[in-house]
């Protein structure tokens, strides 16, 4: 079946380094993608989104890259801080039927060492 998956379940970085979290998706019909951050004991929070008509979108210290050719999504965090330590989820959805009901990947745990 269609699925969203992550290459690295855990990513450890040093404070100040740039982090790259990867996500592979398999549904070629997906046209909307979101990255969420989940801190321990809390619900996921929206970070950034991107539609399939774009290949790059930037936010504050974060950049999402979309490669539709290989069905790959990445989240880049610049100058990673200890407060960035969390689990990061990518989610894909399709506008088929107008519902945009997302499918979430397993998540990557980002650990930032001071």
């Amino acid at each position, binding site marked *: 079946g269609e699925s969203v998956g992550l290459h690295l379940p855990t990513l450890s970085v040093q404070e100040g380094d740039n982090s790259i979290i990867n996500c592979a998706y398999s549904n070629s019909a997906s046209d909307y993608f979101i990255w969420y951050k989940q801190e321990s004991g*809390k*619900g996921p929070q929206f970070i950034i989104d991107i539609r399939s008509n774009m290949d790059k979108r930037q936010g504050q210290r974060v950049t999402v890259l979309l490669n539709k050719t290989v069905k790959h999504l990445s989240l880049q965090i610049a100058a990673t801080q200890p407060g960035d330590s969390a689990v990061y*989820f990518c989610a894909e959805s399709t506008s088929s039927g107008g519902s945009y009901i997302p499918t979430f990947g*397993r998540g990557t745990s980002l650990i930032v060492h001071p």
Partner: protein
Amino acid sequence: NAGVTQTPKFRILKIGQSMTLQCTQDMNHNYMYWYRQDPGMGLKLIYYSVGAGITDKGEVPNGYNVSRSTTEDFPLRLELAAPSQTSVYFCASSYRTGKGNTIYFGEGSWLTVV
């Protein structure tokens, strides 16, 4: 702003007991969702609703029921609790727009079935 509010935060149930997880949102979102998250795993969709009076099954609906009598409320009912339903439950809501829908999550409800 309250956003999405879930209750209770924590609950221990005995096998076979029933309970309702309450969820309310004050953002006038038309879409609402219930997800469960097992340890180290992603979010799995239980049920969702695209508006008052309309509900649909998600990926893992067995053992659960929902209702959507108002725009604001979307309670999740567990009828005969089983140990497999031990999980963290997240309620969420969103608008549906032609550009996708960013989902806003509640803080989660930790349920243990013993």
